[in-house]
């Protein structure tokens, strides 16, 4: 099922990827997201040209696990930085500098701090990539002409066909009822 970093996304089985619905503005997509969320869908997403405040909440997106990853990588960086300097200064290449002990921890704090920040930042960037399945070179939604408007003035909800609650006619009806202007079926591949 795909590469560890999926250049091509994991796709629903079958002919159709799912449904794509366009909404007029941020208000309607906000309430529509709440309706899709409350209807119990799990494999779906929203696409807006700018961040809509609170949309993650309307979608029922759970808190990201990224902070935990950053905490772990940041602390590893800091610990590794301190250990590295301890090993170099005390074991590998002991040098007495200005009469101070070999393990002079205050001198090691700047590097420890910097490595903590560096590893935390790397963990944040690459962790974000991993959780978002990036880089992704292709996505079935790109085959929809209307979808280009997601970078301009279009507000979209896409519901994937492998969602347990997915039913092409009923789901489309739900989206229309929620205020969608257009609903189209997007094919795989």
């Amino acid at each position: 099922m795909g590469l560890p970093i999926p250049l091509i996304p994991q796709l629903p089985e079958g002919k159709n990827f799912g449904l794509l619905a366009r909404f007029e503005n941020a208000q309607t997509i906000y309430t529509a997201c709440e309706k899709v969320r409350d209807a119990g869908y799990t494999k779906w997403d929203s696409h807006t040209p700018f961040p809509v405040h609170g949309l993650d909440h309307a979608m029922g997106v759970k808190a990201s696990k990224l902070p935990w990853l950053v905490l772990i990588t940041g602390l590893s960086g800091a610990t590794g930085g301190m250990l590295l300097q301890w090993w170099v200064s005390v074991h590998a290449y002991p040098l007495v500098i200005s009469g101070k002990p070999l393990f002079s921890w205050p001198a090691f704090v700047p590097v420890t701090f910097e490595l903590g920040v560096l590893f935390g930042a790397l963990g944040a960037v690459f962790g974000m990539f991993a959780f978002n399945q990036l880089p992704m070179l292709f996505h079935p939604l790109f085959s929809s002409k209307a979808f280009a408007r997601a970078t301009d003035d279009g507000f979209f909800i896409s519901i994937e066909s492998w969602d347990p609650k997915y039913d092409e006619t009923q789901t489309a009806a739900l989206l229309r009822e929620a205020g969608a202007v257009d609903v189209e079926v997007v094919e795989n591949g």
Partner: protein
Amino acid sequence: MSHGPRIVDAAQMDLPAGSLWRRLPLVGAVLAVAGFGLSFAMRGGNEEQFYSSWLVAFLYFMSLGLGGLFFVLVQFATKSGWGIVVRRLAENTAASLAVMFLAFIPVYMGLNQLYHHWTDTAHLDAILQGKSPYLNTTRFLIFGLAYLAIWTLLALWFRSGSVKQDTTGDHDLTRRRVKWAGPGLIVFALTSTFASFDWAMSLEPHWYSTIFGVYYFAGSLVCVFAFLSLVIIGLRRAGSLEGFVTVEHMQDMGKLLYAFVVFWAYIGFSQFFLIWYANIPEETVWYLARLTGNWKPFTLFLAVGHFIVPFFFLMSRHAKRKNLTLGVGALWMMFMHLVDMYWLVMPTFQKDGYALTLLDLTTLLAVGGLFLAAFGFFLTRAKLVPAKDPRLIESISFQNF
């Protein structure tokens, strides 16, 4: 969480009738009088302890006013939207600087006990003679009064315009304050730096650290964000601010508190690091005093309690969004800032190790009462929120991502 149009109740901008908060000025005044009376009674034969304890309390509660003033200035300078609903509380905190003139009197009276190294002009060594154009009692008094006058002027001017806007809704009041916030910040930086030099650093007149002012400033900001968080939690419990100050603003107060905890550690370590590294006796003497006897565990406690514990405790977003965890963290930081002020002042007087006395508590009650009385006075005399600020709606609907 809320979205879209939201109805807020204008009555939430006032303290409820019969709320205990309305008695804060009285409570503060009683504490101040009782604290001062007790301190004064215990002063006999204990003058040095009285004045040094007083100085700790003075520096502590002044830092709240200064922190509040800085927050207000930055809010205007950055034309901030999110913070409008908490700005009035900071304005009230800053306005308390007006009564710090009273708390300054004992500091000036105790000049010969507190700063005898440089006030005793008959016995100055060459270095202190060289510093005497700056370190002398006349300049100390003039500058001290000038700092307090400038802060009072700034704090009251910013607050009065803000309060006036509650009725007139005049946007020009905001514009003028935005315009003067920048120059105000420059004046604030200079005065607070030199105030900390005069009142705390000159306790050891041979020793100097150019970062000292920033250190005091960093601690002040920690303390004021902790204080404001606690006040907001308290006011919400009393049934005010509902719909105005939301969990989103609480999280931001927590974030600022957290940021300044880290900033404080950064500055504190930077000061220590350079002095430790160069290892020049005239510089290390200040830290030597703080690592001698039982001051050593005290210093360790400061480093752990003021940085490591809150660094992990307040790290999570959830900790900042719950009243209980934010409240505990804020209370702890207010305590640790007191420890910090004690650590700045006391090693000069208690060379062999710290020894807590009752005077430490009673002077704290005296100056703290004075502060609470002033804060309560301003709190009860205006709305809790800038009611007609042009950015109020933006602030109310603010959300964290």
